[in-house]
């Protein structure tokens, strides 16, 4: 009897150790995941600003934050293998993955990522605005779409038949660093010019003019949406993550939301570092958290946002 108990105890101890090790390691083998939707134990997860809160919730507050611009710069220059990178998984826009791999291939560098998930969640980037300003733009343009925003940014309200003082002030998070700002800029450029070649001088001049002359710069420390909502007089319209804008508008009567068609879609994926397997639990956890925050899953609508390498080229125009 004693021997039997000892065997049972030993089995339990070994089994417990295996379970414990598995938990500690996370889903190292990358197999299937499953489990609950609570925080995963994924280590060294880097997330872009737009999804950082969801990452924190999904990982139990162990993720690190980078702007999309900083992530892009890092991913373009570093040899990203487990031996050389502390980051094992990335949560970032799909366009950024496309742009990084395309550019690394052109440079003859090895791929940055091992596996890349399908889109775990998406949101529209939308024009949020002071409700009476959005109404005035709608009256002027027929509908507040990205072409309307691009074409009327910087115009005198009086020229649009409205009685508001000054010009149409459009807020954009810096495209150089922000995925939201870059996606909105891409959508505005496509809406105004149609499919465009960012290497053409005319395109660059148009984008430069839009950025330098017509779009006000956000105060540091706040998104354009937060600035719109809290600092009256700064912006009439601001490009914002749709899920965030809807949430703010639900609480703050100073903010309204337009839903342009075609849309500007920001898709988010989870990618593993090169030579690593995709952490599917992390992908599932982020998807769950983003959905809870108002993001969408499933098929994406038609989008004005150009391909990743085109977007990144647009970003470099901003940087000049």
């Amino acid at each position, binding site marked *: 009897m004693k021997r039997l108990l000892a065997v049972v105890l030993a089995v339990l101890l070994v089994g417990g150790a295996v379970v414990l090790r598995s938990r500690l390691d996370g889903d190292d083998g990358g197999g299937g995941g499953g489990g609950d939707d609570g925080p995963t134990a994924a280590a060294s997860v880097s997330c872009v600003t737009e999804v950082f809160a969801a990452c924190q919730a999904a990982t139990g507050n162990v993720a690190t934050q980078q702007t999309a611009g900083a992530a892009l710069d890092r991913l373009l220059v570093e040899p990203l293998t487990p031996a050389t990178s502390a980051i094992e998984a990335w949560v970032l826009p799909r366009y950024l993955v496309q742009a990084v791999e395309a550019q690394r291939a052109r440079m003859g560098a090895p791929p940055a990522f091992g596996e890349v998930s399908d889109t775990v969640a998406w949101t529209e980037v939308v024009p949020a605005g002071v409700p009476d300003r959005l109404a005035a733009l709608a009256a002027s343009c027929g509908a507040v779409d990205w072409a309307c925003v691009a074409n009327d940014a910087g115009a005198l309200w009086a020229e649009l038949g409205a009685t*508001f*003082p000054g010009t149409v002030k459009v807020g954009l998070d810096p495209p150089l660093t922000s995925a939201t700002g870059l996606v909105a800029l891409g959508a505005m450029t496509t809406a105004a010019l149609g499919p465009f070649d960012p290497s053409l001088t005319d395109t660059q001049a148009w984008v430069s003019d839009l950025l330098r002359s017509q779009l006000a*710069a956000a105060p540091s*420390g706040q998104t354009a949406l937060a600035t719109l909502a*809290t*600092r009256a*007089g700064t912006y009439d319209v601001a490009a914002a993550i749709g899920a965030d804008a809807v*949430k*703010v508008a639900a609480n703050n009567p*100073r903010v309204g939301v337009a839903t342009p068609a075609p849309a500007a879609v920001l898709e988010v994926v989870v990618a593993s570092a090169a030579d690593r397997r995709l952490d599917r639990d992390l992908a599932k956890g982020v998807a769950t958290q983003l959905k809870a925050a108002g993001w969408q899953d499933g098929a994406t609508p038609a989008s004005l946002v150009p391909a990743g390498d085109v977007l990144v080229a647009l970003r470099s125009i901003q940087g000049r």
Partner: protein
Amino acid sequence: MTSRNPISRRPISRRMGRRAAPILVLLAVLAAACSSPSDGGDDASPTTGGGGGDASCPAVNVATSPEKLDLLTDLARTFNAERPGGVCANVSVNRVSSGAGMAALAKGWDEGVDGPLPTIWTPASAAWGAVLDFRLQEKGEAAMAGEGVPFMLTPLVIAMPKPMADAVGYPAKPFGWADLLRLATTTDGWAAFGHPEWGPFRLGKTNPNFSTSGLSALIAQTYAATGKTERLSLEDLNRPEVDTYAKGVESAVVHYGDTTLTFLNNLARADRSDTALLYASAVAVEEKSVIDYNSGNPDGVLQPGEQPRIPRYPLVALYPTEGTLYSDNPLFVLTAPWVSDQQRDVGTAFQDYVGRPENQQRVLQYGFRPANPEVPVAEPIVAANGVDPDQPQTLLQVPEPRVMNGLLDLWDTQRKGARVQLVLDVSGSMQEAAAPGSDETKLDLAKRAVISALDQFGPSDEVGLKVFTTNADNAGGDSIDLVPVGPIAATRDEMRSRVESLLPRNGTPLYLVARSSFEQAISGYDTTRINAVVLLTDGVNDDGTPGDDRQQLDDTLKRMQQASQGENSTPVRMFTIGYGRDADLVVLRQLAEATNAAAYDASDPRTIETVFANVISNF
């Protein structure tokens, strides 16, 4: 929380509140920094709040500008108790004015003078963080502030008594700095608007070297002069028309000072005697100050037992058509050598905590606008309180730090000139030790303060030096004019030499000298300048004939009030400094209030240098 400050630099207000006196912070490179009670000024030395956390948890100090001390103290207390996200922390809050905090961080924080080393620094405006990092980088040091998280907001406005606002077309007609300039420079004054009884246009505006609202006003009026709303440049500042514009606005200034509360308290007092419209026509303040004033609480703090007094003439906030700036009260988690990773984590958690919607609701109670976009602007930011939640319509970009430096440098040449009589007590009690065990006397410290403050005057200012004590001239006279009022550029060295040689002597003929100094300033009154007397004394009236003291004081106060009020007044401001524990603060306050000036408390002699600098900030 309102404990006596060991290094107090407070004006003596009726409330003797924590939001009283601001601090002088001369920016070595810029020339200065700023702060005021309503906008970040007040005491640089700490008043502590919060705490109460688990002593075994990491201690995290928050250095805050004064206007949000109460609020942050409450938030620290609940943060410590609730442990959001399991964060174990012992957060405490200390009051440090915006400008003083910036200067202390830039030069190297001295715990003995500046208070506990901060993990979080929250000045009134993000501009302070930019200036700090600029100054550190100029010295080859790493930036410390970086990007802060805004906590709560309030825009700069031009506050005007409602009858005057009505006269300029409020609310239908927008009002801006250009309109103010026209009012300031017209020879007709309010007569141009059908109200000759209001006299000339008089503007209350604080010193931008001390006060955030003063700095914001300077930036806004300069943008207005250029017609721009962003990218103000050094080239813009040097345009002749910008210089002319600035001098025009400054020409209407009543006096400057370190805190907007001086204006608001004086205005409230004048309102009670129905002379508010003759004291100031407009004051550049933060929106929340308009709400406080109209609620009968001009300094924003109701002491126990104090009842608000609703003003006869409420203020209305005019949001300049050319644009304005927000004070955004950022929380900077400092990247400083003394801040550990653990403290940084707590600091970040505290940033998140104060931004929660339920905590942001609380900022509304203080008249600020929430920084969390999910919390809408609401009561008390409503039209009934003289403010407009849908304003401002245009925001101005905060200039680069080097441009702000240039602005402050130029302001020294554009501000209204001053004609100031310095009147110093050299009675026998000034020979007492400045502090127990100190080798220095009160007079020693006062002399050093005066000499140091002389550099604050511009070369075109006219300054005189008088000392008083009984039998000052050995012929029965009460005072001696050591240096007659004249251009300080020519007399600065002489004045310094005279001050250095002062000796303590006899009694304190305070009332007689206050009166005679006032009359002397009236006789030399210059309409183009700020006319003032600065009176420093360490005692009560003691002229050897106590029987007529009461009458002397009453006559003096009556005469001062007569000269300071009315359409054709010749306002000479008497700024008084109560020096040492025996000074008659009550009488000094009466003298200051009779001339719509301010009284300052230097009851701890060690504070005199700072207090004197604050006083001179009025010019």
